[in-house]
């Protein structure tokens, strides 16, 4: 299965809005909760109450500082999980066929029954999207909640990845990026969505929307709005009285 299937028409993925993400980690923990209880082995935690706690997470939120040429430094919260690449190097390197890309919707999955835990797929992934579970010895990764998005036991509105469903600020969008008419494709087109590490040639399906420009400069077309009408309290009161008497029924 390590050969990539022919490109699918449907390319399911996420669009993550870096303008809106407040870095709250809600998606991180919702993902941990759902995927611990569902698809494959639990996402284990080593030494959970000890000196060196370390667990498997399929989605992690980084924070970066960006120093523009002018203006104050900015901060960008940056959630990152599997990007479900079209040319997924993690799939082709797999020696057992455990790692595969679904032919019908492009989701990249690990068949845990076939995984030998050699880690080579994680080596091949530039994004750090795969983590070997220390307890289960198999590779874990974002499944795009494949066990939610088609799940007939869930109400239709909930057939969306756990991270998207829980995101409080609505910074995560799920949909078909293979369909140029889909809401997510439109969003990518409107907002200039981009790929991570395009030079790696992985052709990620997931897209990121850039932060909108921050920190307007001081040159201000609105300045005339603050033109003084008075320089002291008496002047202000007089100005209001004049304005009132100019109104219909004023000057009583």
């Amino acid at each position: 299965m390590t050969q990539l299937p022919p490109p699918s028409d449907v390319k399911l993925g996420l669009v993550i809005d870096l303008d809106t993400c407040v870095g709250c980690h809600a998606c991180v923990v919702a993902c941990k909760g759902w995927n611990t209880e569902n698809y494959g082995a639990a996402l284990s935690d080593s030494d959970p109450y000890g000196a060196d706690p370390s667990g498997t997470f399929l989605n992690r939120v980084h924070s970066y500082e960006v120093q523009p040429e002018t203006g104050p430094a900015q901060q960008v919260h940056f959630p990152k999980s599997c990007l479900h690449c079209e040319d997924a190097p993690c799939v082709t390197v797999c020696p057992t066929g455990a790692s595969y890309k679904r032919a019908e919707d492009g989701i990249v999955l690990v068949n845990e029954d076939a995984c030998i835990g050699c880690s080579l797929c994680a080596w091949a992934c530039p994004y750090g999207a795969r983590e070997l579970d220390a307890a289960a010895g198999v590779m874990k990764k974002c499944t795009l909640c494949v066990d939610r998005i088609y799940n007939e036991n869930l109400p239709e509105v909930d057939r969306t990845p756990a991270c998207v469903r829980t995101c409080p600020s609505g910074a995560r969008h799920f949909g078909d990026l293979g369909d140029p008419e889909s809401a997510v494709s439109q969003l990518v087109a409107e907002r200039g969505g981009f790929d991570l590490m395009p030079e790696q040639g992985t052709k990620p399906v997931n897209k990121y929307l850039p932060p909108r420009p921050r920190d307007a400069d001081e040159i201000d077309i609105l300045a005339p709005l603050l033109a003084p009408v008075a320089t002291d309290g008496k002047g202000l009161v007089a100005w209001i009285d004049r304005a009132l008497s100019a109104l219909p029924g004023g000057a009583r």
Partner: protein
Amino acid sequence: MHPAPSVIAFTTFSGLGFGLLFWLGLGLPAPTGLVALGFYVIAYVGAVGGLLASTFHLGRPERAAKALTQWRTSWLSREGIAAIVTLLLGGVLALAALFGSYLAPLGWLVSLGCLVTVGTTAMIYAQLRTVPRWRHWTTPALFFTLSLGGGALLANQGAAALALLTLGAVVQFIAWVTGDTRFDRSGTTTGSATGLGDLGEVRAFLPPHSGPNYLLREFVYVVGRKHAFYLRLIGMVLAFGVPLPILAVELTHLTAGVAVLSHVLGVLCLRWLFFAQAEHVVGLYYGKR
């Protein structure tokens, strides 16, 4: 990259084992009887031991056989198949040698198998765009020269060993000189990793978790600059500096033993550096390389 002892041992010893087997396949030398037994045991301890060692880093070693199925795309799968086929054929060759005959055509096949095996091993690393230092012709060149050179040393092929190890030293030097800047030249930066590079200078501020994780353990390994320099020096001296003059002068049992021991220790050191100094692009997300 984390310099895992199992992977260092695997690549070093299986490289030497297949290198020796390569020369035995060519009939250089073509021992028989107990002498053959000795040579083949050394080759197989290296090759098989290395392969076994490599299973130590598997999460589910009991499923290792599944790794033979995906030869169409996976260098790791190809390596497994090549190694097993080569070792099986080599076994026949060894049996024949034990009983006094050298089967030349089979031997050539075994030698070819050894080349393929070493080549596929090298390609596991050389294929990775994510590790710019490895993605270069010097990676297979290094694996070949060290494997065959070390094999020649073990096979008592002084001239070949002299040539190959000299070449190996040159390749290693080139690998370092070009490799030290390849990450920076790869075009992958924190800016491209985050897509924020156009906005300004990007700096990792908060890691996603305050504690360690698999990615940091597996991919981010920092070797101090000074430390690395001395290790390179030691690796060069042991792997090449000691054996080459010995080879140039004359091999005795004692000097050959010294040369082999020094070379193996040197290769272990170089292999440790091969991993420890390899920077995976994922480190950019953590502000680490």
